[in-house]
């Protein structure tokens, strides 16, 4: 009885097999086509974006523009001061954020014993990275300028940037520290190292790749930041020395882009700055990958 049923089923099935196969094939073709389309659109958008900016921007990005400052008398635009301001802000915010961030990461990973506190801080850092940067700008203005009495300038801007990049530096350093096998730590301690000696001579050098990658990503964040700097670093387009720029309104490249495009209608200058920013970002990303791999290989 059961044998008969089985045979019947198989016969019925074999009649329907071609239909199922066709449907499955069709289904696969449609899905594959759809996925291919999503990829094409994504890649297309990226290439369009990069190409559009480079094509429109590079032709206006001239040597005089890169090396002079804007002049109303000669009616020229130069972004040298803004390049310098961006560099100043990288320098100062990294000088503050690196030791703070690495120190905090080392403490959290190597010293802290209260796991709950550590996870809370990690969560807080994670949350901070998601806050819109204009909010950091607002806080920066209220705290550094209104409360501490700094003037708009590179210092207030850099301090605000420190708040923005600190979580990134802490997180990347921590991830890097976590990936170091405990074998190294035990090996060092078993030779009679103190804890800090162990951290300094074995742990930190091994974590170098992550720290460098994190730093480069943080620099990228600084270069790309605009909203937080509107309130804190200001719109100044004059060239200042590092020291004078600290307390003088100083527009970064991104802020300068905003000023030239929205307040003066200088689209060409805007595109030139955009192209420069794009090149810097590309360079930084390559550098992050390169150094990350290079240091890891050792």
């Amino acid at each position, binding site marked *: 009885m059961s044998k008969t049923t089985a045979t019947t089923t198989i016969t019925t099935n074999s009649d329907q097999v071609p239909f199922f196969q066709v449907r499955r094939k069709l289904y696969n073709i449609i899905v594959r086509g759809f996925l291919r389309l999503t990829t094409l659109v994504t890649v297309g958008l990226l290439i369009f974006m990069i190409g559009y900016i480079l094509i429109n921007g590079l032709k206006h990005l001239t040597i005089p523009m890169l090396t002079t400052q804007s002049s109303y008398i000669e009616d020229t635009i130069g972004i040298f001061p803004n390049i310098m301001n961006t560099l100043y802000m990288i320098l100062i915010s990294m000088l503050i954020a690196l030791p703070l961030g690495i120190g905090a990461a080392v403490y959290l990973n190597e010293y802290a014993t209260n796991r709950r506190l550590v996870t809370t801080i990690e969560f807080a850092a994670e949350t901070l990275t998601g806050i819109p940067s204009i909010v950091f700008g607002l806080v920066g203005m209220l705290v550094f300028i209104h409360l501490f009495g700094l003037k708009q300038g590179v210092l207030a801007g850099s301090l605000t940037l420190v708040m923005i990049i600190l979580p990134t530096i802490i997180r990347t350093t921590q991830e890097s520290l976590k990936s170091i096998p405990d*074998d*190294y730590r*035990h*090996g*060092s*301690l*078993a*030779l*009679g190292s103190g804890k800090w000696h162990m951290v300094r*001579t074995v742990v930190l050098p091994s974590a170098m790749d992550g720290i460098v990658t994190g730093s480069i990503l943080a620099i990228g964040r600084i270069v790309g930041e605009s909203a937080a700097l509107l309130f804190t670093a200001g719109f100044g387009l004059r060239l200042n020395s590092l020291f004078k720029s600290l307390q003088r309104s100083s527009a970064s490249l991104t802020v300068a882009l905003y000023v030239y495009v929205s307040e003066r209608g200088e689209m060409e200058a805007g595109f030139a700055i955009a192209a420069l920013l794009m090149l810097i970002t590309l360079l930084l990303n390559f550098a992050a990958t390169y150094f990350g791999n290079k240091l890891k290989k050792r």
Partner: protein
Amino acid sequence: MIINVQKLNLWYADNHALKDISMDVPRNQITALIGPSGCGKSTFLKTLNRMQDLNPIVRIEGEVWYNGNNIYDPKMDVTDLRKHIGMVFQKANPFPMSIYDNIAYGPRTHGIRARAKLDAIVEKALKDAAIWDEVKDRLRKPALSLSGGQQQRLCIARALAVEPDILLMDEATSALDPISTGRIEELVTQLKKKYTVIMVTHNMQQAVRISDQCAFFLLGELIEYSDTSTLFSTPTDKRTEDYITGRFG
């Protein structure tokens, strides 16, 4: 006696992992700790240089006397203790730096900076660990480029470079091939002229081949401790006999 353990108890949180261990370890001999997995032999070994301190859930009671000091005395300087009681781990763990810097790491840690002095220490340690001939031409190469057996001998050399009294070896050959194992066994036999060796081993043949004293652990207790030849030929405890004749483990 170089080490005298008295009523040592250890808990991992609520798990009573070592129970009333008392034993004497004689100087310039090889003492082997044997027993099935989880019997507490490695746990015990790591109490001797206070590596257990690194585990926050561990609680220890009892005394371990070394050179007239109880190493669990709160006044004990742990870094100094670990300088005198070196350790080699189950998995070779050279630092990601050059062969030379690996060996010089310990001496540098303890303040030796002079180049000539470091060179001499490195050479001596590598010779003592019977690896000098293999690496003398590539001291600047990364230690991680060595083979597993070489890495383990490098780790022994690294431990010897701080001139310890005692060398603790935690299943130092369990991850190695028979040839590398043979070399390390030979090396350890040489080392006992200058050092005291306490080794944990999974391998009973190894304990028979090279140890002078042997301690059998089971479920956190020290069941039997005597001359290796006595322990293996005429064990007094039924459990020891069962273990060494392969009835469990």
